[in-house]
């Protein structure tokens, strides 16, 4: 299943990891606990409003700040199926792949897609369809090495295979 379809929640530039999951909740790493507070300081009540399969569209430098892997874990556990942004902070970018949260880079899609739009994403081709506006976008291709890690089932599976051989 490579197609995702959901409602868009929109956020601004430089959404930091404290906005994604405030550090005051980092006394646990339980995904369901973290999910309850996802995006709390950026959009109070987000965790109660977001539905499984919904999509986040944000501005540049998404996930800046801390290295906390709790950030992509919280987003994923809140039900968000994909995050689209023009750029991601580099530690968040790696963490998203390592925790299995789909993220796509597209400045055009991030600028054009509005809150509440219904969007369909083909994660294999990186095609983003704004079903509300009828516009289509193409995300930046995933780097080859990252794709290889994904094909292997993620970083730990990649290592598990290597260490077993």
């Amino acid at each position: 299943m490579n197609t995702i379809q959901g409602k868009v929640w929109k956020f601004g530039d430089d959404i930091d990891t404290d906005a994604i999951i405030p550090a005051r909740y980092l006394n646990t790493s339980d995904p369901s606990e973290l999910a309850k507070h996802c995006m709390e300081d950026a959009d109070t009540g987000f965790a109660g409003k977001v539905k499984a399969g919904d999509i986040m569209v944000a501005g540049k430098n998404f996930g800046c700040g801390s290295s906390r892997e709790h950030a992509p874990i919280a987003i994923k556990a809140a039900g968000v199926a994909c995050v689209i942004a023009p750029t991601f902070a580099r530690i968040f970018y790696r963490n998203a792949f390592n925790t299995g949260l789909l993220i796509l880079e597209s400045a055009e899609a991030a600028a054009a897609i509005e809150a509440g739009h219904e969007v369909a994403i083909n994660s294999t081709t990186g095609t983003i369809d704004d079903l509300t506006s009828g516009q289509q976008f193409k995300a930046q291709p995933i780097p080859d090495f990252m794709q290889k890690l994904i094909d292997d089932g993620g970083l730990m599976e990649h290592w598990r295979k290597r260490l077993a051989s």
Partner: protein
Amino acid sequence: MAQTITEKILAFHAGLDEVEPGQLIEAKVDIALANDVTAPIAIAEFEKLGVEKVFDDERVLLIPDHFTPNKDIKSAEQSKILRDFAKQQGLKNYFEIGRVGIEHVLLPEQGLVLPGDLIVGADSHTCTYGALGAFATGVGSTDLAAAMATGKVWFKVPETIKVVYHGKPAPWVEGKDLILHTIGILKVDGALYQALEMMGETIDTLPMYGRMSMANMAIEAGAKNGIIAPDEITLDYVRSRAQRDYTLFASDPDAVYCKTIEIDASAIRPQVAYPPLPDKSRSVDQAAADKIEIDQVVIGSCTNGRIEDFRLAASLLKGRKAAPYMRLLIIPGTQDVYRQMIKEGLTEIFIDAEALISPPTCGPCLGGHMGILAAGERAVATTNRNFVGRMGHPESEVYLSNPAVAAASAILGRIATPEEVV
């Protein structure tokens, strides 16, 4: 081919003669570290991998510093995961309460991170060790788990931005101010995926604590690492502390940089970064003119929790008191810093000033514990982040500064210049 210091360290650890920006490498790590927030996830991932032992029981470091002394049951459970794992693995460098300090103050002090090292830490401020001439970068818990198990990590070799500082800083201008000013130029994503190499005559005479403040905040411009080539100042710091051999690297004179920024350090005033981003830096004179009343001052953190930082704060607080209703928190970065504060009479100055001295902890810097802000409150902090809700309620505010500005502000109850006090 001419190489930058970052490229040389990465090539060395990848077993290659040279590397170029964009190249993917698998590199050996010298040190892999995590704290009580990030290690529990890393340990869970490590255990899923089915590996019995960490790659090296002297080079996997666990530092429970964020929610310690544990503030509640949940955080105690988190710390217990680290303790149990350290016992089971026989880790030589696990730091219990009483030995622990703020990781990025503690590890350089103890000589556990050294020039030429490749260091990954499940903490974004791991970049601090670039001040020693190491390649050090923050990673997530899963990347760290793989490094703990294999001693290896993959990297894309970054391009390097060169920042050259000229001139002698004015009185009260610290490394903290140089980096806040630099982040103000670069903005919070200005060095995304890139290395930030800092050099020039200003850096040549900048003491280690100031260099550590600078490398510490490279991440606030989005950088993969911040780095300063090791010199005599570095060696003076490292020689007596190093617990193993180390290697000195330096950029070739004709190394290629993607961008060069020249900064006249003599023209910079102490900086204050306004909420909610570290790149909103302005001169302290502007901040003082804005008459910003404050409720709390925090002096400490991995950015400014070293003995020199407290000497600076004490030089202003001596014989003076925190303003009425002001909460002034002093957080020594390590037990050694604390001991030195006592020896030099700084603790007495702080107590006389009606400051509260906290044990070493990250505590309020990340809004964890030990000094949380209520709605509508404002703090001046010598920490590194002023994001929304960083020190407490989402409607509280954090202004970032050096320890002198923080001390002056504590005395006057509003953001103030050091000159207003002395």
